[in-house]
């Protein structure tokens, strides 16, 4: 297997967007849509823990097309229950003692990763291959650290089970059960979350680039430690933890726009976002050119109008601050396309 370090991993993964607000997370957690393209063929849940005591879990969604397209990720967060141990709340897990009592709260978040290079334009099988390579990074590193991780030394991991066990000593002794319980709790939490939100419209979904990754390894591969499954495979990987919040972006961007793949001329369907109607073509271009709905809305409301080609029945708006042009259908007001750059 090939090991990719954090830098290479990031370079290959490209841009990602992090969402933590419950509504958005719920929309991404919606497991399927009815158009057939989004139906998953496999879901895998994986947990990981970092040396600093933080940790999380995530789900990979494999789609029929072969691409991984969704990730539902969790962060563990200590939260007091009843009579918490003094000072336990909010402390890194590794600083807790076996007698501390607290509950673990699973904070869901969705992280969307998109390849930024030419590989993003290739068919899904290449995307899938890339995923496997990156997954292999964790697996390859696991061999060299086997033996390092022993139950008693994993002071940072068993703490995650306290939410269930409340007895860290027991959690450590019964490590397998601990991990199984964590797995179950995460899954239950996730399922509840998903099921409660199934059917919600997913506006962000309109921006998804088919073949793009919602990818899992950003946080755990670069996080230093990765635990797969029920703690059977442990990988220590090189590199420092990078704050996932620093890695933001939105698909294409100014100076580095994307374009629809040749096999996929129509990517998005029309949608209404924040009361504004967007044509599928507009959503495609927003995705390709890295523009958010808020920018479009601002351009229409604050920008100046400019004439478009006669006979097209369109109206142009220009925002000189963001250097964005938005073209709408004059009759319906629907956003038809968006263009970056100065006139």
């Amino acid at each position, binding site marked *: 297997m090939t090991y990719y370090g954090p830098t290479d991993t990031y370079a290959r993964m490209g841009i990602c967007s992090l969402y933590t607000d419950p509504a958005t997370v719920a929309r991404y957690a919606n497991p399927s849509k009815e158009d057939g393209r989004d139906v998953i063929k496999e879901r895998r849940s994986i947990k990981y823990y970092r040396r600093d005591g933080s940790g999380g879990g995530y789900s990979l969604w494999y789609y029929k097309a072969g691409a991984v397209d969704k990730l539902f990720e969790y962060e563990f967060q200590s939260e007091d229950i009843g009579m918490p141990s003094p000072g336990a709340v909010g402390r890194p897990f590794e600083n807790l003692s076996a007698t501390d009592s607290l509950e673990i709260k699973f904070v869901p978040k969705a992280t969307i990763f998109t390849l930024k290079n030419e590989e993003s334009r290739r068919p899904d099988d290449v995307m899938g291959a890339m995923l496997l390579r990156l997954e292999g990074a964790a697996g390859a590193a696991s061999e060299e650290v086997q033996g390092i991780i022993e139950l008693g030394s994993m002071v940072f991991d068993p703490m995650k089970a306290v939410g269930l066990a409340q007895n860290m000593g027991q959690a450590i002794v019964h490590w397998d059960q601990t991990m199984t319980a964590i797995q179950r709790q995460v899954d239950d939490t996730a399922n509840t979350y998903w099921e409660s939100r199934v059917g919600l419209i997913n506006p962000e979904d309109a921006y998804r680039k088919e073949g793009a990754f919602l990818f899992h390894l950003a946080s755990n591969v670069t996080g230093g430690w990765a635990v797969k499954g029920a703690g059977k495979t442990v990988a220590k990987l090189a590199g420092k933890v990078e704050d996932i919040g620093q890695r933001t972006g939105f698909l294409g961007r100014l100076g580095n726009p994307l374009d629809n793949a040749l096999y996929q001329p129509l990517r998005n369907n029309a949608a209404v976002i924040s009361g504004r109607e967007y044509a599928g*073509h507009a959503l495609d271009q927003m995705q390709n050119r890295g523009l958010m709905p808020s920018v479009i809305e601002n351009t229409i409301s604050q920008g100046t109008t400019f004439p*478009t*080609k006669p006979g097209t029945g369109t109206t142009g708006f220009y925002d000189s601050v963001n250097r964005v*042009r938005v*073209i709408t259908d004059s009759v319906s007001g*629907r956003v*038809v*396309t968006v263009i*970056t*750059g100065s006139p």
Partner: protein
Amino acid sequence: MTTDIKQQQCIHFDAIRQILLKEWDPIGVREIEGAQDEYNRYAGLIYKLLIDRKPELEIFNVLWCLETEHMGLTGNREATEHFAERLTKLSDEIFDTKM
């Protein structure tokens, strides 16, 4: 031989991209520098229609669907009919003489 065909396809493909921007341009962005790739995504679809020698009506239907449904435009039916006719002739020119 294979290389020749690929080169020829590239030429055709590029020609279609140009004609979509310069002659079709239903949104009216051809003069905007940042929108020179506005219709590139549809070139493959159109190219396939031409390769398959689809009739003018079918080409029109595809164009009209793109304009009015995917782009959300009110559309200019007459202009689209004219462009579909143009594409059909282009198809004849390309594939009658080259293939």
